[in-house]
């Protein structure tokens, strides 16, 4: 049955080939089902091989299947071969098992994506590469798988490559991983130059043979440190972890499969595979592994506390848990490391897929501040997510408790400081995961809330209309002033008219006095006098009217002034309110009330209005079935290696063949074990209670916990960017300058002597020929000088 091992990587490779050829023709969903069946076939083959391996004797469980002679180059001969032993098959089981479930999940998740078949193409290639990585019987095969998974990861992160963030994240992953690769390659070469082979079947006996040999310890230390560089790159440890949080830009199933369950564990696998070499290295080398792991675990856990993106929390959580695995490997606790790797694969894949389901159901929303109360809307997702939470938080009897407790036990056995860091990390883990569960699934549904940006936009609308009111008032005032002026003019006119009529009356009287009563004109004049007498009161009447109009106009000016003042003050009041509005990026937590919209409701922007139409919903069965399956594994996964009696140490017995007695020996009394377990449980429960206190009941302002350094990951990324963009960039600039200016310039100095000759050789466009020529001369002079110095030495 062991001979079937070749089928394990071959099945997804064939799937890759078929999708490559026919992917477009198959389209959605057939390409997905094809990819799924390839992964499932691989899983079935793994199970068969596993059963075959179980049937073998303990010592016989080391089987090398040589496929073909690959690089038969003289003394450096490499076969393409597979190494089947408990370690590699354990890895294969969970890679193909989790991988199959994630394929199924992806069929639902990637629904409607224009590059549906391409996604499964990469996914199958990834699974094949990952299987080659763990099954390879020599370091070169492992390295090729190592590079293969890296390339797939890079492709899949940039999958939606129209988005520049994704593209830059992919680039980051690529470059950081190259640093790790360089460690791997140098380690491989070093192994080759010392052992004369890079086959594990040769390296392991060599290392076992030289156990305790001080002559070899130096080399082994170098190898281990180089492997640590490699593993830190792939498994996202300090200081090379920066790519993993950014990698969350890719599709969620990718995060689950590659960036949580499988690829990122390959560093731990590599170190475990090389455990005999670790055993002969100097103690400080393996201690370095443990400390890198412990510090990464603590560091990432603090960052996870303050993240608001649902996937970023899980990403930092993954970095932190991987740190746990490194810690375990560094103290020789290989079995707990593999144990936790398996349980972590279960519950972290579950959590990622759960978050993907949330994101899917929430219309691609990833900000937990806008979630809340989803438990009612997405029952399956929330129940399975809660199981994953209990598992990672270390609550018995869920899987994570058992494996994490093992690591803490071994840490206690090795170094109390490491144990303390591990315990604090566990506490933080329980805290930030509880925070995530509460923010996402409990509390008020904040999905429909207006965001700070939306409120600001609405407020701005309002401010604009308020300023419109002010303008209107100003216009009215101006009109009132104009009418006052007009009325005043009228009064003047009317006053003049009164005088005119009085003059007329006088004139008429005087004229009448001059003529005798019997004159012809007397009757005429009398008539005029009568008229003038009538005209005077009329003019006075008109004047009084005009005066009253003026008074009215003045009154309207007053009222217009009042209106303007009111408009201005209300605008000012509104503008002053702006500072009280929620600003973007403030902490909105479960307990804070919905921002009061008041009369802003009518002015909300389109994004808000549209969102009111959308209803978060549960995901389709293709997505929920994997969730349920993984949550089952997250509940019972602990049964792999229960601590109660020796008979229950299944995993420990199983992995014995691969560890060559390098597993650390426990020297801890049973009562201490129980005590440590109780401490761990109490810590986990306390952290959970604390998180409930803060986020569910709102007794503490979350801002006192979510400090800015946490939220910004201790500024590591920014510092890197500064170095790369500042001094690093300057370095490049300087080098460029050096080549073109300093070398050229130095040459120029020499050149001035021969400028008259050289000027005829001027270039047309760039650089000067004479400079290049003199560059050659200077170089030659350097070479000749070196040779002459050899002469003087002899």
């Amino acid at each position, binding site marked *: 049955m062991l001979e079937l091992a070749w089928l394990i990587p071959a099945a997804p490779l064939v799937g890759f080939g078929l999708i490559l050829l026919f992917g477009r023709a198959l389209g959605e969903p057939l390409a997905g089902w094809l990819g799924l069946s390839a992964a499932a076939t691989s899983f079935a083959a793994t199970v068969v091989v596993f059963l075959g391996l179980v049937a073998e004797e303990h010592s016989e469980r080391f089987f090398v299947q040589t496929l073909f002679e690959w690089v038969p180059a003289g003394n450096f001969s490499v076969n393409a071969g597979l190494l089947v032993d408990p370690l590699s098959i354990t890895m294969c089981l969970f890679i193909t098992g989790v991988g199959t479930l994630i394929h199924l999940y992806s069929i639902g998740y990637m629904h409607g994506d224009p590059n549906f078949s391409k996604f499964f193409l990469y996914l199958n290639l990834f699974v094949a590469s990952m299987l080659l990585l763990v099954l390879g019987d020599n370091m070169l095969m492992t390295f090729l798988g190592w*590079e293969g998974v890296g390339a797939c990861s890079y492709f899949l992160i940039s999958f939606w490559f129209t988005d520049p963030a994704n593209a830059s994240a992919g680039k980051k992953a690529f470059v950081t991983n190259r640093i790790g690769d360089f460690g791997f390659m140098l380690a491989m070469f070093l192994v080759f130059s010392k052992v004369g082979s890079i086959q594990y079947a040769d390296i392991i006996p060599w290392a076992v043979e030289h156990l305790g040999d001080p002559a070899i310890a130096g080399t082994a230390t170098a190898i281990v440190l180089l492997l640590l560089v490699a593993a830190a790159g792939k498994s996202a440890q300090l200081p090379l972890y920066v790519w993993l949080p950014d990698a969350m830009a890719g599709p969620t199933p990718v995060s689950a499969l590659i960036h949580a369950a499988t690829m990122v564990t390959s560093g731990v696998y590599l170190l475990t595979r090389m455990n005999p070499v670790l055993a002969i290295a100097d103690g400080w080398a393996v201690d370095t592994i443990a400390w890198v792991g412990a510090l990464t675990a603590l560091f990432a856990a603090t960052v996870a506390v303050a993240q608001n993106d649902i996937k970023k929390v899980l990403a930092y959580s993954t970095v932190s848990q991987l740190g746990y695995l490194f810690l375990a490997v560094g103290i020789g606790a290989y079995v707990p490391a593999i144990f936790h790797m398996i349980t972590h694969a279960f519950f972290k894949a579950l959590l990622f897929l759960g978050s993907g389901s949330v994101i899917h159901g929430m219309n691609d929303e990833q900000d937990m501040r806008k979630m809340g109360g989803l438990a009612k809307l997405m029952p399956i997702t929330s129940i399975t997510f809660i199981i994953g939470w209990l598992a990672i938080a270390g609550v018995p009897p869920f899987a994570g408790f058992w494996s994490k407790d093992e690591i803490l036990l071994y840490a206690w056995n090795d170094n109390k400081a490491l144990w303390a860091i591990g315990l604090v990390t566990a506490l933080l883990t329980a805290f930030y995961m509880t925070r995530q569960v509460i923010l996402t699934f409990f509390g008020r549904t904040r999905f429909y809330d207006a965001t700070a940006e939306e409120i600001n936009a609405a407020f701005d609308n309002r401010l604009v209309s308020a300023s419109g009111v002010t303008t209107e008032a100003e216009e009215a005032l101006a009109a009132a002033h104009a009418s006052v002026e007009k009325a005043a003019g009228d009064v003047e006119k009317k006053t003049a008219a009164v005088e005119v009529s009085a003059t007329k009356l006088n004139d008429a009287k005087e004229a009448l006095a001059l003529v005798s009563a019997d004159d012809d004109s007397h009757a005429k004049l009398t008539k005029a006098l009568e008229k003038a007498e009538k005209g005077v009161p009329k003019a006075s009447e008109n004047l009084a009217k005009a005066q009253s109009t003026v008074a009215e106009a003045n009154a309207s000016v007053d009222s217009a002034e009042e209106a303007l003042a009111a408009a201005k003050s209300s605008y000012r009041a509104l503008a002053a309110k702006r500072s009280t509005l929620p600003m973007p990026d403030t902490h909105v937590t479960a307990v804070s009330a919905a921002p009061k919209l008041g009369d802003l409701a009518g002015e909300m922007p389109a994004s808000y209005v549209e969102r009111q139409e959308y209803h978060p919903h549960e995901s389709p069965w293709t997505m929920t079935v994997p969730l349920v399956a993984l949550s089952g594994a997250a509940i019972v996964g602990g049964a792999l290696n229960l601590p109660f009696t020796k008979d229950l140490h299944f995993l420990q017995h199983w992995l014995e063949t691969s560890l060559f007695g390098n597993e650390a020996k426990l020297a801890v009394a049973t009562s201490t074990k129980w005590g440590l377990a109780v401490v761990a449980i109490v810590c986990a429960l306390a952290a959970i209670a604390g998180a409930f206190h803060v986020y569910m009941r709102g007794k503490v302002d979350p801002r006192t916990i979510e400090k800015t350094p946490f939220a910004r990951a201790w500024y590591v990324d920014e510092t890197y960017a500064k170095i790369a963009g500042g001094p690093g960039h300057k370095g490049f600039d300087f080098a460029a300058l050096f080549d073109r200016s300093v070398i050229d310039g130095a040459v120029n100095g020499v050149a001035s002597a021969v400028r008259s000759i050289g000027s005829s050789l001027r270039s047309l466009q760039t650089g000067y*020929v004479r400079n290049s020529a003199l560059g*050659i001369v200077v170089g030659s002079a350097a070479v000749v000088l070196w040779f002459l110095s050899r002469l003087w030495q002899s």
Partner: protein
Amino acid sequence: MFAQTIATPEIPWSLLRPLLFFAEGAVILVTLTALFPRLRTKSFPALYTAAMAVGALVTLVPIWRRVQDDGPQIILDGALAVDGFAIFVTAIISVAVFFTALLLDDYLRRENLDGPEWYVLVLLSASGGLMMAAAEDLIVTFLGLEILSIAVYVLAALHLRRSESQEAGFKYFILGALSSAFFLYGIAMIYGATGSTRLGEIEQALALVNERGLSPVEDSSLLLAGMALLLVGFGFKISAAPFHLWTPDVYEGAPTPIVGFMASAVKVAGFAGFARVFLGSFVPVGGDWRPVVGAMALLSIVIGSFLAIKQTNIKRMMAYSSISHAGFILIGLHAAGSTDQGVSALGSRSVLFYLFAYTVMVGGTFGVATLVGRQGDGAHSLDDYAGLSSRRPLLAGLLVVLMFAQAGIPFTSGFWAKFGVIEAAVRGENYVLAAAAMIAAVVGAYLYLKVTVSMFLTAPESDDEGVMVESGGAIAQVPAAMIVIVAAVGATVLWGVLPDLGGDFLRTAATSVLR
């Protein structure tokens, strides 16, 4: 009377056939096209040149058989060697000529340039390269070097309507002449020191005095200065730092298919001559020259990898990249000069594999550059590659493979090439070189990634029609050029998956150059 005083060596014509295909092929081509002007306009010269390359490749088979049966031979009174090394290098140069001929065909038509001269010069230049690879005498090496170089000077300047091209040719010529002078002077000094220009005799002279525990030769300063000047001459041809200053300018200005030829055939010939001379005669004094080669390697890798990043012109970028590749090959050469036989075999093997892999990769890369350059041969900025994946997905996909190969990503021949030289360095316990090479590989990877990213992630600035208005014509995927690119990618992937294909040939060739 003369027959008695000057003994003419016997000429084994059958062993000279590949050389004749190129040297006489060139003469026949120029005669034919002069007699029948109609032949000038069609694709005849290109097909003819490609046929010559294939012919040379085919005649290598019987010669290889004979070498296997009778062992390596030295012919023409000690002038040329016929051994695995010469055959291997001849094969690589033939491939380069084949690629160049196919690329030139459409290029000339597109640029509205005429004439079989291009092909004649390519053939002549290649014949010089063949001589360098086989030369057993420093004078013959120099002869080959000059035949190779002078033809390429002209080729670089032959795009008569582009002043950049003429500038490039001019610069290349001036600097090349300078380095040739160094080279010739070096030969004279070596002759003065050892009394011979034959590689075998120089080696014996050095080994003999070495055995007696005396100073290397009668006058060491002459020998050392001579070696130094030879290093300068070769260093220029292979564009290794600090003799690299000409490379970016010349690569930028010269016609793109010719740059491909320079980066492949000329560089291969330079390395072949380098290996032949230094491994053939100077191994006994390896302690003197190997550190210089190591330093040149280090400098080339660092300058090539780091400065390439600042470039925005693809051809300049490839120039720096070729400097860094030269550095990698020098690491292999450094190991090959070791007195430890295992290390030296590993080293010379890595050099040959690298040369092969690099020739293929760079041929394909400049094939793409030729097409993307469009009419006027001017569209070589990184911006001209923006969004290539959406306009010409096939071309972009092929270029990605070539870029990854140059970066040394697994499953490409470029990976095994870098793997080989680093392996040789580690075996020779030159950890500094190995580590520097790895770091440079990491840095260099970024450069190739930059090109890839610009092709895939940047939206094209305008549609095909807009581009047409801007820079003279859309990108035409001409069959002849596509054959080159696809063949290059195919070989890159094939040897990436099966690096030991033809491994026996490679090993024999590698050991035959070591004395």
